């Protein structure tokens, strides 16, 4: 098995080098045969890496502890289903996973590539293969997942208990896949630069793959938050840990990209800016992989730590320098098709959007690297933790939500105050009304009121446009559902974006609700005793302990009441792993649209008493609703539109008022 894996790795290295070289040769020789051959080699890389993956999984299945990686991340007692998790639990395996994912994405991209970018496809292929070969080479020469031990241990060390959770089956692979998928839009952009096709040919593919990467990374992050919420046992979902930040930063930058690329798509503007943005996004994605792999900052997520970090930093440096070198070589061909006509226009609003997103990304980066700066310049080790980011990033996010509330309704090219006023009057009034109602009903924390008011602004604006659009179609004889469906179908990028905006609002609601109005109580209860939290009464009945091969499972039984109403039995659980001296908890969560009651078992004491931490987390459920909604928005936005030739929005008319209300037909 291990030999097969090793051979496949070498084979994929050969294939990748061949593909990259031959595609350049094909361009030079103007030979379609060579280009086709390079393509085929690219198609074969996922096959080779797939065999390598199968080889490593096979080694896990057969408990081949001579393979160092298997011995370090598995043992005889491990349940079979965790092999999938153990596969990427460590550095070498996750590298293999990343390379495999990248090879699949590369093949998919090339297979589905549209006619418009065929001219730069060889260059794109080259960039993809260079990145892929970096990972394969690191595996072969520095971190081989198939490396053997001299002596075969009787049993492996087992998998980290924190990784034994359903969330772990999808969350880490999605994060890794998301980060590595940044390579595709980056390669598309670099291919455009290298081949000199620096017009708008790359825009549609770049946007599509930008959104794909954005979605995978976003979904992975959300799943991670869900995992933290249900297992890490501190009642939160986001800790601003360096590793969390390192997936957050590229995600924020690519969010900026998928917005500003619309300006190029519709208006042929921001050409230079979009290229720069995707390069920066890829840089952040690489920085993320560097932090994940033994970066210089401590983190709770350091599962795949190694000393390889510096290789990744080096690769990141080389990529950034060479990318921007190419960028400046093509500088002169990157002028916008047309200039900015007014500071009060959709184009300008997109610039502000990009500025805010980049500020968020770089401020986060600043917080991540400040401990190093402090260490170097004042010799003092310093922590930059959650309170810093909440104070600094929080207000920036509110600005983003504000912009999200008004920018979609600013017309392209040139807006007048008059049409702005007519579009924004209703949303602004609704936002103020919501804020007033909240204050009157006792929600008085200023930041919370601002946050909820801004959420109302966004929702009201979107609903206003949808209702008006559907109504005007209804007047022409369509019934309401059809009218609404056709409205959405008429401008999918726009309305898919709206759905995604609504999902972001749900996220914001959950974050604002739980950070401003969370209740927390730590309590020791003896069996039969009860405690009040908020308007709930929690009664501890007792606990069962179950000895397993590698862990002790202690399951508490609690009953929840509100007043005299019995709300149900709950079973928070705590598993203790003696070999790791680690515990993992499964919170009992009673989730309602208003608030979550969240019970985590702490210790179970000798005398039968148990330590509980009880939270009331308002509105958190909406954060998990946001995930599927976000996905829906992406599907709407990416659904192929008939006759989708690059049409510039040249209608000087206010499109929110006219064209989109009837659906652009």
């Amino acid at each position, binding site marked *: 098995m291990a030999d097969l894996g090793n051979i496949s790795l070498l084979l994929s290295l050969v294939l990748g080098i061949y593909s990259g070289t031959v595609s350049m040769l094909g361009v030079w020789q103007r030979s379609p045969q060579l280009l086709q051959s390079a393509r085929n080699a690219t198609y074969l890389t996922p096959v080779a890496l797939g065999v390598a993956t199968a080889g490593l999984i096979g080694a896990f299945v057969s408990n081949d502890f001579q393979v160092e990686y298997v011995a370090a991340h598995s043992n005889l007692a491990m349940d079979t289903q965790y092999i999938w998790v153990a596969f990427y639990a460590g550095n070498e395996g996750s590298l293999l996973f990343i390379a495999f994912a990248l090879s699949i994405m590369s093949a998919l991209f090339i297979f589905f590539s549209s006619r418009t970018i065929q001219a730069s496809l060889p260059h794109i292929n080259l960039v993809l293969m260079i990145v892929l070969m970096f990972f394969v080479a690191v595996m072969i020469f520095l971190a081989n997942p198939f490396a053997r031990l001299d002596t075969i241990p009787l049993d492996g060390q087992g998998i980290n208990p924190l990784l034994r959770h359903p969330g772990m089956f999808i969350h880490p692979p999605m994060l890794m896949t998301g980060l590595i998928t940044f390579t595709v839009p980056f390669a598309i952009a670099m291919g455009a630069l290298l081949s000199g096709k620096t017009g708008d040919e790359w825009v549609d593919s770049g946007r599509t793959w930008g959104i794909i990467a954005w979605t995978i990374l976003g979904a992975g992050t959300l799943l991670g938050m869900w995992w933290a919420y249900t297992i*890490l046992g501190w009642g939160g979902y986001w800790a601003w840990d360096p590793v969390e930040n390192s997936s957050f930063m590229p995600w924020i930058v690519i969010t900026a990209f998928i917005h500003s690329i619309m300006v190029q798509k519709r208006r042929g503007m921001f050409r230079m800016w979009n290229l720069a943005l995707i390069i920066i996004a890829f840089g952040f994605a690489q920085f993320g992989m560097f932090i994940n792999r033994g970066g210089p900052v401590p983190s709770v997520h350091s599962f795949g730590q190694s000393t390889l970090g510096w290789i990744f930093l080096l690769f990141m440096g080389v990529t950034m320098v060479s990318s921007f070198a190419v960028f400046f070589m093509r500088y002169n061909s990157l002028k916008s*098709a047309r200039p*900015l006509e007014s500071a009060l226009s959709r184009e300008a609003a997109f610039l502000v959007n990009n500025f805010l997103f980049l500020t968020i990304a770089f401020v986060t980066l600043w917080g991540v690297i400040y401990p190093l700066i402090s260490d170097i310049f004042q010799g003092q080790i310093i*922590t930059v933790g959650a309170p810093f980011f909440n*104070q600094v990033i929080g207000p*920036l996010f509110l600005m983003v939500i504000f912009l999200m509330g008004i920018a979609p309704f600013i017309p392209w090219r040139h807006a007048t*105050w008059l049409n702005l006023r007519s579009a924004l009057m209703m949303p602004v009034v609704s936002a103020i009304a919501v804020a007033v109602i909240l204050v009157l009903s006792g929600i008085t924390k200023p930041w919370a009121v601002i946050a909820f008011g801004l959420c109302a602004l966004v929702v009201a604006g979107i609903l206003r446009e949808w209702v008006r659009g559907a109504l005007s179609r209804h007047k022409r004889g369509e019934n309401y559902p059809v009218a609404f469906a056709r409205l959405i179908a008429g401008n999918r990028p726009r309305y898919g974006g709206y759905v995604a905006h609504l999902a972001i609002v749900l996220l914001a609601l959950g974050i604002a609700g739980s950070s401003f109005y969370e209740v927390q109580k730590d309590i020791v209860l003896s069996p039969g005793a009860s405690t009040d939290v908020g308007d709930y009464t929690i009664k501890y009945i007792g606990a069962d302990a179950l000895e397993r091969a590698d862990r002790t499972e202690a399951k508490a039984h609690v009953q929840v009441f509100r007043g005299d109403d019995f709300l149900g039995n709950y079973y928070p659980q705590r598993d203790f792993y003696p070999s790791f001296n680690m515990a993992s908890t499964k919170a009992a969560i009673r989730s309602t649209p208003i608030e979550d009651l969240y019970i985590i078992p702490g210790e179970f004491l000798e005398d039968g008493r148990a330590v509980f931490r009880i939270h009331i987390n308002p509105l958190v459920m909406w954060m998990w609703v946001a995930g599927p909604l976000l996905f829906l928005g992406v599907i709407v936005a990416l659904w192929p539109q008939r006759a989708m030739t690059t049409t510039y929005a040249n209608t000087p*008319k206010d499109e929110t008022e006219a064209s989109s209300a009837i659906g652009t037909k």
Partner: protein
Amino acid sequence: MDTMPIERNNSTVKELLTITFIAVLFLIVTGCTSNSKSLSPDELETMAQGIDKGLMCPVCPSETIDQSQVQIAKQMQIIVREKLAEGSSRDTIFQFFTDRYGARILAEPPKSGFNLLVWVMPPMALLVGSGILIMIILAMRREHHGEAPKKLPAASADIEPYLSAVDQEIRRLTQWSTSNNAKDLPPPQSAKGNVE
């Protein structure tokens, strides 16, 4: 032995001003620092939780003592509650742990001395960035008013004549309006119909 003197005297007026500046900018609501003797047990506990969230666990990477489940974190939580019950303020308690473990025990860098840098940079970035953004927008607009229309990409060649007609029309209108009042640009619909 119970309370440490708070070293506030050395902070200069300038520092205080900067702190106020940041405070105003971000409306940082710092926890109540008043004497806690008059507080109810519930309020004390809420305060204690706030302090827990501001102290890092000394042995585990990047977790606060509120999050961490190791023994020393639990002990620190107990110390926090004892000190609050004795009447220590939030700042005194932070100082107590800083003296023992160094500044890295704090979840956020202190807003003084060299570490002010970490706090000042984000608002500075926002301000300087906004300035640059405004300059870019103005420059891009000037380009619009100064230069001849650019060639459009081939993709839209079929509507090219139409577009240049519209652009000329708009420019004529804009030039006319800048001499009067730019805000009152006549509704651009006058530049004829809809492309689609």
